[in-house]
């Protein structure tokens, strides 16, 4: 399989705070990589460095042969091929669902109205929301908004999809719909990087799981190994806290 994402020596600091302390990572075409880890471990920052929403302090990020960390790169052109889904959905609240899906197609990709609309309908159907095409974002549930956001990214025909805790802002009963869409996307062969707390999803869908803590990748490997039989103490502690939260006192010294 050819390499799609190549990250080497990636560092990111916010002022004196070192968030990423040297990340090396390659993602092959068609691979699904889930990134797990405690809050503050740098996993969201890592994801945001892949489309340069955060400017890395050091290191290289190459996506599909284009070095994004090159100061002369056309970052807008590169981002067209990298979809991103946010925790807070970030649908354009002044635009209808249809316009949310067509505005970038038309203004960035210069597609005609008819084509953009056709692509939009196709992708709305893909996420199971064809009938919501004329709705305003505010009329949709969180789960529906997130699926529209996924469809919006897909309308740009991306090579790579980044998911930044896509279900963390959802009510529990709405999580399943979004994960279902993501699973379907993975089955269709989309290359995906997913920051998530959904261990079940990671275990079933991910080709590879990364456990991050303190700005470094502590452990990585097949989902069954990292989540099923973690080798590192930090991974074990994290997983037991996530999978069995009620069995930890608030004063747990390992937190």
């Amino acid at each position, binding site marked *: 399989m050819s390499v799609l994402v190549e990250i080497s020596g990636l560092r990111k600091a916010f002022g004196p705070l070192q968030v990423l302390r040297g990340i090396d990572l390659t993602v092959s075409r068609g691979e699904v990589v889930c990134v797990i880890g405690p809050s503050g471990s740098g996993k969201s920052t890592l994801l945001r460095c892949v*489309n340069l*929403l955060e400017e890395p302090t050091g290191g290289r990020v190459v996506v599909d042969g284009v070095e994004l960390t090159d100061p002369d790169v056309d970052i*807008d*052109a590169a*981002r*067209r091929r*990298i*979809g*991103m889904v*946010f925790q*807070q*959905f*970030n*649908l*354009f*609240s*002044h635009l209808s669902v249809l316009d949310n899906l067509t*505005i*970038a197609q038309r*203004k*960035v*990709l210069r597609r005609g109205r008819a084509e953009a609309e056709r692509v939009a309908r196709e992708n709305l159907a893909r996420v199971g929301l064809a009938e*919501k095409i004329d*709705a*305003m*974002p*505010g*009329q*949709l*549930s*969180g789960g529906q*908004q997130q699926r529209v*956001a996924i469809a*919006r*990214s897909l309308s*740009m025909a991306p090579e790579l999809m980044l998911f930044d805790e896509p279900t963390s*802002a959802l*009510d529990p009963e*709405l999580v399943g719909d979004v994960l279902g869409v993501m699973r379907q996307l993975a089955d269709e062969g989309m290359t995906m990087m997913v920051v998530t707390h959904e261990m079940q999803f990671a275990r079933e869908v991910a080709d590879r799981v990364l456990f991050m803590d303190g700005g470094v990748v502590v452990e990585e490997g097949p989902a069954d190994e990292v989540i099923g039989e973690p080798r590192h103490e930090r991974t074990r502690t994290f997983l037991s806290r996530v999978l069995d939260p009620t069995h930890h006192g608030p004063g747990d010294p390992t937190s």
Partner: protein
Amino acid sequence: MALSKRRRAQVVRGVQYGVLVVAAVALALAVDWQQVRHAFLDADAAGRLFPGIILTGLKNTLVYAALGFAVGLGLGLVLALMRMSSVGPYRWLATAYIEFFRGVPALLVFIAFGFGVPLAFQIRFDTYSTVALSLGLVGAAYMAETIRAGIQAVPKGQVEAARSLGMPAGMAMFTIVIPQAFRIILPPLTNELILLTKDSSLVYLLGVARDEYELTKIGREALNVSPNLTPILVAGLCYLIITIPLSQLSRYLERRTGGRRISSPESTGLEVKA
């Protein structure tokens, strides 16, 4: 006398109403209604104002306010963007402009553009351009701050979503952020339009032709030949014909957009299942 809390509240409110009624009655008794009628309610004097006060005065007031608002809005947007620029000199320039034009009376700006600038640059503006410039330059200073606040009130995630779809920064600003910012600031912008409507009365300083008179000027001219102050009352009522619908509109827009400013992090807990 142990009154319950509810009873005590009723008594307090009753006393407040009582005081209001007494004050109103005292005022009504103190006024010499005969004099008031002579001074303000002269039907003949009022009648002589029509139709000029509507066809010329009301029309010109509206035109001046609209011109000033248009210039102010455009320039205000530019200033707001400059204020938020990463380029230092743009920021300083915009800040200096805003501080200056917010700090000096509109009247002085009118004098400057009516007399000073034409002298200094040897150009002549017609009245409409002078008014558009003077009101616009003053209005822009206020509107720039309002627009900036609106832009900053749009959640940061909107820009991130736009940029991650490949939009350049400028496109994200103009197609995604600014339309949402204007929905947020419609009420204060309406307010600004009302202020400009009233400030258009400063046109009287310029020495304008008769068909360029606005409401206040017409009222003041009529005062010269009127035995009483009725023209002032009529002119004042004409202003209210403009401003009250505007505030109603503002309130209506506020209600309407208030319900639609959604999908920000705070409101996502609110699930509307359709």
